[in-house]
């Protein structure tokens, strides 16, 4: 419920919230903490995989698998992805896909 509340103003009047319906400034804020582990703009200098330029569809699939607990290799990502709804996950995937490698 709490999660939905923060999205409603953005998706108001639109049926399902699609990635392109989220304001870019809002997506940029959503994407902010990703850089802490995956590096600035998703380009990682260390042991954590880069996410910049990942194909959008692959990234959506991977994040949903994390969220749904079906990725056996996962460590912290399931705990994090449970904090985002599908529209947000799609928006994040597009954001990092468009940054490019």
């Amino acid at each position, binding site marked *: 419920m709490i*999660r939905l509340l923060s999205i409603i103003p953005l998706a108001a009047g639109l049926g399902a919230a699609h990635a392109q319906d989220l304001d870019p400034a809002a997506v940029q804020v959503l994407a902010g*903490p990703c850089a802490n582990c995956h590096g600035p703009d998703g380009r990682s200098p260390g042991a954590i995989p880069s996410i910049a330029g990942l194909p959008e569809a692959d990234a959506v699939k991977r994040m949903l698998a994390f969220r749904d607990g079906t990725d056996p290799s996962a460590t*912290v990502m399931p705990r*994090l992805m449970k*904090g985002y709804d599908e529209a947000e996950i799609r928006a994040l995937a597009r954001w990092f896909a468009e940054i490019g490698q």
Partner: protein
Amino acid sequence: MKMTMRRDVLLGMGAGMGAMALPGIVRAQGAARVVVVGGGFGGATAARYLRRLNPELRITLVEPQERFVTCPFSNLYLGGLRDWDSITHGYDGLRAAGVEVVHALAEDVDGSARTLTLADRTRLDWDRLVLSPGIDFRWGELAGYDQAAAELAPHAWKAGPQTQLLRRQLEEMEDGGTFAIVVPQGAFRCPPGPYERASMVAHYLRTHKPRSKVLILDSQDRFSKQALFQQGWQALYGDMIEWIGQSDDGLVVEVDAGAREAVTAFGTRHKADVLNMIPPQRAGLIADRAGVTDETGWVPVRADRFESARVPGVHVLGDATIAAPMPKSGFCANAQAKVAAAAIAADLAGQEPPPASFANTCYSLVGPGYGISVAGVYRAEGEKVIEVEGSGGVSPLEAGPGFRQAEADYGAGWYASICADVWGTA
């Protein structure tokens, strides 16, 4: 498509302009000025992201130290797993990004005149002020513990000479000695920090002085990632680490730093060879000067923009704030800084700030190749921070060695990434 174009405006321009920015351009008349106090995880991030969001803004970062030593990974230095340089960061990356960096001590804030006064009496005008002052200690609150005592029984809770002092004391300690660490009452920076420190000291002692002991005297009865730490301690160090919680007379009320003795609430005297006293804490002093602290000594903020609830135009970040359920961590300070930067940039452009969203992941190293984590996702609900239901939590207790190894590696990866994000260093 629309999103792509606007993303370019938000991000691409920042990156392009940053490389070309000259001080003369930054000082262009009419450009709004944001002054940031504190060059740590919160302040340096805010400065960097404000420049990216709007390269027209004049951003001044005020930080007394020319080189910043991070608390995160300072326990690994104590354990002998990291060298000093690897946890030390300069400000060239921020300068290259177009941030004006001033190495001075911020002394006073006038919230109505919108000025910041430095120790040399220089006054800086600001349109928005960001304070990320970290913590200060409540000296004198714990009987017998003051700045002079800290030279004998170091706190090492602000990374720097104190951390090096503690390391030297550990090196000088005889095999068979006792290292005691005292966990303070009240909110403190880095909730899992004392237990990671106990782990890293145990690693050092097991390797070099295996007959020694680690004693944790705790003001709390439960602690961050407790079951995971205790499981790891058992697996890696056997019974080398002893934890005494508050109900078992773990609360320390008095210290004799010269004798390296800690005295508990019930009068038990614990004699240590190396005594690591973590003192009670509060927001960094400049927060008080700015009038943004409350009676707790910490800073209440509006969660949607990390702006002071008391002085408009003053944003406060990181350990200094009351942001529970977000912990006092470098990761959180960085996440809060991005929300504040977005709010300030929008506000100065006459736009509505985007909705706040935060996350946190705190890795702790129990031993080499043995990492554990706690994570959370947060939003602003009204003026409060809330944790998104169902998100977050700690590493599974039943995970195998592969999982612990991965989290140790990811902890190191996190440090490389966040330092690149904050200071532009790896």
